[in-house]
């Protein structure tokens, strides 16, 4: 071996070792950990043949914080703020996954009003998350302006969420048996206005971006993900629905008051990046619909169960609770040994499964398409590394 082949770290060496003898001259490039289109510190080692990627391997773990170990040390209450940090873009879904798991374990009843508040805030957060993705994806494709427009809209939603949760990004709002604060009239009026605003903005998004010829050429038939492959990798969320499977945890494993709400699960059968794009845009519309319905159905009553325990000491046993996050199925698996800390806490993050299929999907595509695919998977790196 020459000195040139010895450079790089452990992962590069492993990657080089898997290179075929006949393709030894191919260019091996590190895409990341600092790369504009990896959205954080994701690193993808790619083997390039000209502009084509012949092999890719994501290397993750740069943001690993060992949330699962923290869960074994902290009490059930103390672990709550961690959840907002796992996926900062859809923090309330992670909040819900964890709170819901513990509530299921302890059989805590949640008042109806609290359930509706959860639905409203979680869907609002989903819109925020999709808006960030929308802007960032176009940034990946080289359009700089859309992210400014989407952040303009997102700001309205974040202001509303700040009104009741007190924070703007890493929420810690849900509590065992309810939510921390009740919503007020100002929030309800503001949310109705926001729904109207979103409805008026979506056509603009369509004109500016969705119909754009260049964008369509960059997304259509790029990164076609067959349904069978999505299933093999356990992909969920918009990535799966972009392959035509109408699978949504909100419908498949109904939790909270979602069965009472009337909304559709958008799914597009093409399986390409455009289908994933369309799913997310359609989901924003559906979320607006859910929020409007929940506001109309919002009952009076407690926002916190009156008998919610101050100290959580669940019975022995295990529980798996899944919710639908903006990126897919968020699962929290808790094994309780009857003490005030979990014996084992497992977080199933959707981006983790979604990214694992990238290596297979990117094979043989152009570098620019790989960027487009990576963007269309909607990755949040802290969630992958946990």
């Amino acid at each position, binding site marked *: 071996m020459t000195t040139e082949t010895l450079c790089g770290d452990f992962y590069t060496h492993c990657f080089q070792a898997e290179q075929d003898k006949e393709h030894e001259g191919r260019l091996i490039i590190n895409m990341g950990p600092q790369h504009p289109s990896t959205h954080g510190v994701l690193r993808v080692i790619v083997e390039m043949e000209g502009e084509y990627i012949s092999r890719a391997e994501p290397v993750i773990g740069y943001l690993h914080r060992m949330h699962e170990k923290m869960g074994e040390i902290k009490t059930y209450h103390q672990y709550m*703020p*961690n959840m907002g940090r796992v996926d900062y873009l859809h923090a309330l879904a992670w909040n819900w996954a964890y709170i819901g798991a513990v509530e299921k374990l302890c059989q805590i009843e949640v008042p109806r009003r609290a359930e509706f508040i959860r639905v409203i805030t979680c869907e609002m957060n989903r819109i925020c998350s999709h808006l960030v993705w929308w802007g960032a994806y176009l940034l990946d494709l080289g359009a700089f302006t859309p992210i400014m427009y989407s952040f303009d809209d997102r700001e309205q939603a974040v202001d509303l969420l700040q009104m009741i949760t*007190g924070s703007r990004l890493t929420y810690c709002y849900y509590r065992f048996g309810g939510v921390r604060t009740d919503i007020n009239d100002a929030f309800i009026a503001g949310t109705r206005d926001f729904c109207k605003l979103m409805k008026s903005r979506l056509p603009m998004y369509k004109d500016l971006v969705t119909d754009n010829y260049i964008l369509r050429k960059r997304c259509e038939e790029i990164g076609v993900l067959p349904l069978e492959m999505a299933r093999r990798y356990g992909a969920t969320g918009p990535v799966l629905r972009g392959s035509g499977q109408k699978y949504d945890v909100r419908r498949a494993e109904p939790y909270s008051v979602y069965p009472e709400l009337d909304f559709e699960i958008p799914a597009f059968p093409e399986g390409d990046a455009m289908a994933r794009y369309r799913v997310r845009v359609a989901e924003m519309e559906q979320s607006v619909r859910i929020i409007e319905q929940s506001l109309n159905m919002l009952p009076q009553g407690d926002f916190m169960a009156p008998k919610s325990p101050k100290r959580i000491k669940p019975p022995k046993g295990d529980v798996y609770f899944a919710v639908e996050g903006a990126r897919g199925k968020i699962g929290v698996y808790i094994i309780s040994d009857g003490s005030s800390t979990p014996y084992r806490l497992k977080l199933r993050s959707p981006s983790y499964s979604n990214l694992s299929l990238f290596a297979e999907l990117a094979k043989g595509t152009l570098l620019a398409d790989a960027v487009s695919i990576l963007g269309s998977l909607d990755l949040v790196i802290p969630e992958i590394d946990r």
Partner: protein
Amino acid sequence: MNLLGEIREAIKGFYSLAVGMGVTGKYFFRPEVTVHYPRKTVDNVSTYSGHVELQPGKKNPDGADCIVCGTCVRNCPSGCLTLEVLELMEENPDLEKKPKKIKKLKALIYDYSYCSLCGQCIENCPVTALGFSQHVYWAEFDRKAIKMDLVARLKDQLNAKKEAM
């Protein structure tokens, strides 16, 4: 025919690009939405939950209602609160009983750099002595500078209020 189809598609594509240009062209003349921060500030600071602080007490307007139970310290996930307790003997001792010890709050050291603003201390406080501040625009050059004594902060705040009156 294939060529005709492609030409039609190309024209459609050009039209879609023109529509996009129209959108950005329209927004060019719209007023800006940015808030010029140091000169103007946003108006929703009142709903923001800033760092934790002691609230002026209802029973004890000159200080906090804190009963030094230590619940906040125990419940804090990141261990950013430390209690310093002053132990006093009861002032008017009942001669028949043993003199009772009274715990008083000397200082509540709060390290903002570790705080995750989850509100566990505030919710679990039995006398609601703690609350979120609206101290938003707080920046320091040194990480150690955002570690503070909440008792001293409360005292300063109350003094400032008195002077204002």
